[in-house]
């Protein structure tokens, strides 16, 4: 843990619960961030059209959304991924410090995080290279912590680059979080217009399959993860009915 961003938005915590298992908001809400990163980074986020990018509902409200399949496991490296030119100075610095090529490649590939969002119900997610914690303040206000992850004992120069990458997207003045927060506040306002209106989370229901592990699975832009989370929430809120 190398630093924490904290901010609040005026909306219910469940709006945020959806965020890390919501693939389809990314190209619209985060268009400005996409426009500001290099093509290689943008490619990593090309999950919209990648059929291998899937969401698994893990049960009890938990889910995993896999965006960058090539970054699922650091130990699996087919060697095709190229290090982005703007990080060459880090590679040179690590070489000078005596790191071997394999180690350098592993460190560089890890910089953008794990390639998936692991959502643990109800309020903690590991998203790419940071932890996200939701803290409900009231029914219509939520606090969010984005906790940046670095390498314990790893090279300081790379941990500093990880801080810069985290700052680029996250936090109250990042290129991503403010746009998320604006969207969530609008959702809260919109939802207040008709509190009895059903919330549709049926995207991908028609193409949901069951994985060999028994997990309901659909494309990462589908709502299998959200369905699992809301089902768990309803189950917990109705616990008295079951007694």
């Amino acid at each position, binding site marked *: 843990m*190398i*630093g*924490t*961003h*904290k*901010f*609040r*938005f005026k909306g219910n915590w469940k709006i945020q619960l959806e965020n890390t298992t919501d693939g389809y908001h990314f190209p619209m*809400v985060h*268009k*400005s*961030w996409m*426009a*500001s990163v290099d093509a290689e980074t943008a490619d990593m986020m090309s999950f919209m059209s990648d059929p291998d990018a899937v969401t698994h509902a893990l049960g009890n409200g938990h889910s995993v959304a896999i965006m960058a399949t090539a970054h699922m496991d650091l130990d699996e490296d087919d060697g095709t991924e190229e290090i982005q030119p703007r990080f060459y100075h880090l590679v040179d610095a690590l070489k000078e410090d005596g790191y071997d090529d394999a180690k350098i490649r592993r460190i560089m590939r890890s910089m953008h995080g794990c390639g998936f969002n692991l959502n643990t119900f109800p309020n903690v997610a590991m998203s790419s290279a940071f932890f996200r914690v939701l803290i409900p303040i009231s029914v219509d206000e939520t*606090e969010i912590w984005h906790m*940046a992850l670095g390498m314990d004992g790893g090279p*300081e120069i790379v941990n*500093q680059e990880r*801080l*810069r990458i*985290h*700052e*680029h997207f996250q*936090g*109250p*003045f*990042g*290129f991503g*979080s*403010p*746009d998320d*927060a*604006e*969207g969530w*506040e*609008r959702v809260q306002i919109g939802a207040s217009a008709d509190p009895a209106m059903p919330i549709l989370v049926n995207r991908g229901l028609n193409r949901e399959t069951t994985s060999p592990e028994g997990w309901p699975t659909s494309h990462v832009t589908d709502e299998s993860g959200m369905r699992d989370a809301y089902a768990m929430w309803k189950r917990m809120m109705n616990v008295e009915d079951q007694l």
Partner: protein
Amino acid sequence: MTELDTALADPRVGRAIELIWREAQILDAKEYPAWEELFTPDAIYVIPIDQHTGDFEASLNMVYDDARMRRMRVERMMQGYAPSAVAAARTVRTVSRFTVESVSDTEVVLRSAQILCSYKRNNFALLGAELTHTIALSADGDKIAFKVVRLLNSDDPVSASGFLP
């Protein structure tokens, strides 16, 4: 010591304050391309989280902008893709309580207090901050060489707001 010998009466300090006030007006007007022009090429604009750190590079900040990030930030604020920037709060700010940290013919370092009032969707919000500006003086035009914004609530939740302090 006559009245005119006070540090704030130094014309070099006056130039620096004038630039800081111009910056404040430009930020309230959200004229970000003009704001970008106020900085030297190697200037850093930082909004730290840690209330006391001076080692911004090794810390997580809210903003740590060199020229490259500043360019992208201005682009983001202007291009119309970012809903938070398009629907940004209106702001008005005052910068005052100047104290002179150092002054030379090429550089002035000033500390000041900023009271920033923002308005959006029937809500006023107040954001207080301690500012430190390093102003590079030059016959070609004075520029901001370093700006640190220490928000009073930097280590507590800061709401995303679509404007720059």
